[in-house]
């Protein structure tokens, strides 16, 4: 059985409006050392002894315990609901002293859903400092339409950042975010387990909605500009304002550039 068992989350484990605004703006959340040490050690041991790409989810005794933690379930429920659909998972392994980086890409193919999104959870069972090659992402790129490796000739982009962290770090990514694996300059193997989940319902009002139109939320979305977005940065702002309407379930809330959604009657 591939699907993830879900238990309704306590409100305190749901994403706050501010956290959700950050996800909508940046396309990811990075939770450093989020998973408890005893689980990290069990998973890492299994990865070292029996870690295989597509089958790890089925064969590991401990990996599901990570994603059934109430704190993790609350995050998943906030983004894709209580009945998420298992899409796929993979244990990515980068050998020690591996010098080649992956090209920039978006996973799967270009997505035609106007607002709905899958999430990809990246879990590091061991310390993953930058020199070990944790995944490189481009914050704020998740709503830009590209198709798989159509951006592969880019090499370096202002604002790129690695998902570096201590053991137990969990990154939650919008499916559309630009990313690539990085070289491993250490003498240790780098593992990251990826789980992709689709929504099992409309993604409206799934997080803790308290304060979803607050000044702080408006600040996060309104000031979430990235230098690399250049002249298009106001359009990126429009994209996240439209996504905010979808995830809040409020088709009138307007956090767009200069209130353009309201001004243009969108």
């Amino acid at each position, binding site marked *: 059985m591939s699907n993830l068992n879900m238990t309704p989350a306590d409100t305190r484990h749901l994403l706050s409006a501010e956290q959700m605004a950050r996800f909508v703006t940046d396309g990811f959340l990075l939770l450093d050392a989020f998973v408890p040490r005893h689980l990290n050690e069990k998973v890492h041991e299994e990865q070292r002894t029996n870690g295989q790409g597509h089958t790890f989810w089925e064969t590991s005794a401990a990996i599901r315990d990570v994603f059934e933690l109430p704190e993790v379930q609350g995050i998943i429920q906030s983004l894709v609901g209580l009945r998420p659909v298992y899409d796929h998972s993979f244990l990515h392994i980068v050998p020690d002293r591996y010098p080649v*980086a992956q090209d920039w890409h978006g996973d799967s193919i270009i997505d035609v859903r106007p607002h709905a999104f899958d999430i990809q959870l990246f879990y590091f069972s061991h310390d993953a400092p930058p020199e070990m090659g944790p995944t490189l992402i481009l914050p704020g790129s998740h709503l830009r339409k590209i198709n798989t490796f159509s951006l592969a000739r880019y*090499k*370096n982009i*202002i604002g790129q950042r690695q998902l570096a962290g201590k053991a137990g770090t969990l990154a939650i990514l919008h499916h559309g975010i630009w990313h690539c694996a990085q070289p491993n300059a250490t003498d240790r193997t780098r593992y990251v387990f990826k789980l992709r989940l689709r929504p099992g319902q409309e993604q409206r009002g799934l997080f803790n909605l308290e304060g979803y139109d607050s000044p702080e939320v408006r600040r996060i979305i309104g000031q979430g500009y990235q*230098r690399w977005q250049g002249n298009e940065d106001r*359009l990126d702002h429009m994209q996240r304002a439209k996504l905010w309407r979808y995830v809040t379930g409020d088709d009138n809330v307007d956090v767009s550039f200069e209130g353009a959604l309201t001004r243009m009657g969108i």
Partner: protein
Amino acid sequence: MNETRQQILFLNLTTPDLKSPVIAWSLYDGAAPADALQMNTGDASVPPYASVLHAMRDGWNVLQVPVLPHYPAGQEHDTGHLPYEYVLERKVAIA
């Protein structure tokens, strides 16, 4: 007479102005040996030039300038690839 090979530099700018800041860059070095490591993703955080004009002053020739974007009705707010991409070239001698 020295043999030369092409180096291609992509510079992506914030606007179509050739003086505007570089926000992304990549180098493909045709003079490097086949087994040499080319520019990797994520291997630098500072662009090699501040703008296309800076690169021109350093001897790079502009091969291609981007067509200015157009905005079809209904897709005015869509975003995608980096639109202001300049292709530059220089020839270097090989040993």
